[in-house]
């Protein structure tokens, strides 16, 4: 009754705290979208496939591009304990040409439909040599089903699209190992003739598989889970942790802003609170009102901040890798509410210290 009416009849001052929180939530949501966009854009090709893990040459430090394995390792890995399926992975970061001109490409040679293969969201996965599925990001470059995408003098016909399958923020082209190798040879003449070299082996493991045992079964290899493989991509982990620390610091600032606002509000109402305590209102009752107000202000801040962030998303240039995810929105919403409540709780001590006896008389 007290808390809600104070907001209803004092909209101006609460508008101030709600605006401050909305701006903070907006900022944090955009940062979160950037963090997600960067993370998802960098890791899709290894995170969003059927593979649960990847086998690397032990000197590759988990880098697909740096790793070199003989193709014969595929069979050895397949025979290792806990491995249900294994398939070759070849990777080529290069430039290519699409219908509208040059495009960046990450070419993945895999066993289409096998381990490490994405799923097609439109059309089909490639079945014949000379065909490919490409990431939906290439639609912006004019690629449609039936388009030709070429790397050097090797071209492939697009038969399908995959989604959330980018690699290091580059759109991917998924094809068989054979076509991948022709493309590699076309732009890397020095590698021509290395017909038995692949970069990695994608695996699907049993739920209780021991990755160390798999690595031990095949000489000179290490095995990472799909998630670890994503984080091992240069810059991904550092980017995520930097952006996340900015996000959580900003949310802590939100908590401080709420703490200061309610500290001022309580200070201003000290005389009133003393009178209400004299009348029999408990510290708990007055404190709950303040926390309820903080919750309402934070919730409004989340709603307004989220709406503004979504509107802002409409004007962000498509080159900026932002991705607004509901999970991130919920996390940030929860953290904002917690920051608001924790901030308001700093006022509880202040309320507890108000002496009801000061409601009577002036001095002693």
């Amino acid at each position: 009754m007290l808390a809600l009416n104070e907001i209803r009849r004092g909209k101006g001052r609460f508008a101030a705290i709600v605006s401050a929180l909305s701006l903070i939530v907006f900022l944090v949501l955009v940062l979160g979208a950037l963090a997600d966009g960067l993370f998802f854009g960098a890791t899709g090709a290894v995170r969003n496939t059927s593979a649960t893990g990847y086998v690397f040459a032990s000197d590759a430090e988990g880098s697909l591009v740096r790793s070199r394995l003989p193709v014969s390792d595929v069979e050895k890995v397949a025979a290792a304990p806990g491995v249900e399926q294994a398939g070759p992975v070849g990777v080529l970061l290069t430039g290519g040409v699409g219908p509208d001109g040059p495009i960046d490409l990450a070419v993945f040679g895999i066993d289409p439909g096998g381990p490490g293969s994405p799923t097609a969201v439109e059309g089909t996965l490639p079945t014949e040599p000379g065909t490919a599925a490409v990431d939906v990001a290439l639609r912006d470059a004019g690629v449609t089903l039936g388009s030709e995408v070429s790397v050097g003098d090797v071209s492939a016909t697009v038969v399908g699209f995959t989604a959330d399958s980018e690699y290091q923020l580059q759109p991917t082209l998924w094809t068989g190992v054979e076509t991948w190798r022709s493309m590699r040879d076309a732009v890397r003449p020095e590698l021509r003739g290395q017909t038995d070299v692949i970069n990695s082996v994608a695996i699907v493991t049993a739920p209780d598989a021991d990755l160390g045992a798999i690595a031990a079964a095949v000489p000179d290899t290490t095995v990472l889970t799909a998630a670890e493989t994503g984080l091992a991509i240069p810059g991904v982990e550092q980017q995520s942790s930097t952006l996340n620390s900015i996000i959580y610091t900003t949310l802590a600032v939100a908590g401080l802003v709420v703490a200061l606002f309610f500290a001022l509000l309580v200070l201003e109402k000290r005389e009133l609170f003393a009178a209400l305590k004299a009348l029999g209102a408990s510290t708990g009752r007055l404190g709950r009102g303040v926390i309820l107000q903080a919750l309402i202000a934070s919730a409004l801040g989340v709603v307004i901040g989220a709406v503004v962030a979504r509107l802002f998303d409409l004007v962000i240039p498509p080159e900026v890798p932002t991705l607004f995810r509901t999970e991130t929105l919920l996390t940030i919403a929860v953290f904002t509410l917690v920051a608001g409540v924790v901030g308001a709780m700093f006022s509880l001590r202040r309320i507890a210290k108000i002496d009801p006896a000061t409601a009577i008389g002036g001095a002693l």
Partner: protein
Amino acid sequence: MTDPANDPVLDATRSALDGPGASPADDAAGHPSALLHVNDVRKVYGSGHTEVVAVSDATMAVDEGEFVALLGPSGSGKTTLISIIGGLLAPSSGRVTVGDVDVTAMNKKELTAFRAERVGFVFQSANLVPFLTARENLLFVSSLVKGISRTQANERADQLLSELGLSARAKNLPEQLSGGERQRVAIGRALMNDPDLVLVDEPTAALDTAMGRQVVELLRREIKARGKTGIMVTHDLRMVEYTDRVFEILDGHLTHVEQPSAIGH
């Protein structure tokens, strides 16, 4: 124009010293079944060289249905004494009982509930909740007590506002009310939870004489009509005529109990 220092109307100490009334302790012995008993209450602030005795061995008794004044100049200890009676301050020693309840034996939580249920306060400046209407200010205090239904509370608030001549102002916020109206809302708030004791602290401090008289007269009427026990702290001799008895306090000592007619006229 008289010198204020020699004006008996404004100098509460003079009549207190000259009054013919009995000592409050002797008087209390004659009221064994009183609602409020204050026994040897002493309140000391600080210790050693900085020790200040705010109330010294106060003993008094107030009957149910009585409206009395606690009269004294500023610094006399009247505020401290009424705070102890109302469960806002713990005495250094002594005992206060209201009915069969020992106020001085209660812990903080029990005192909060005691104040909500059994004491009504009227403060110097009305101290209404600025963002609640007159009616909501009354309803708020009823929400501090368990077991009062909403309908009951609404009816009681409306009845009190009507008795206090505030029906037309029920939906006004305190800032839209005059000083006298605010103080009348505060009276309604004090009576809202049907308390045993109504404690009133300098209700006329922020009002002019005419308005002050009106408010105290109304206060008396409400307290009497409901059979409540009222204690009004004041240093204003003009207001004691509305009370049944006057307890005089000076330098922390309760000195006399007077009939209002014996004071200041």
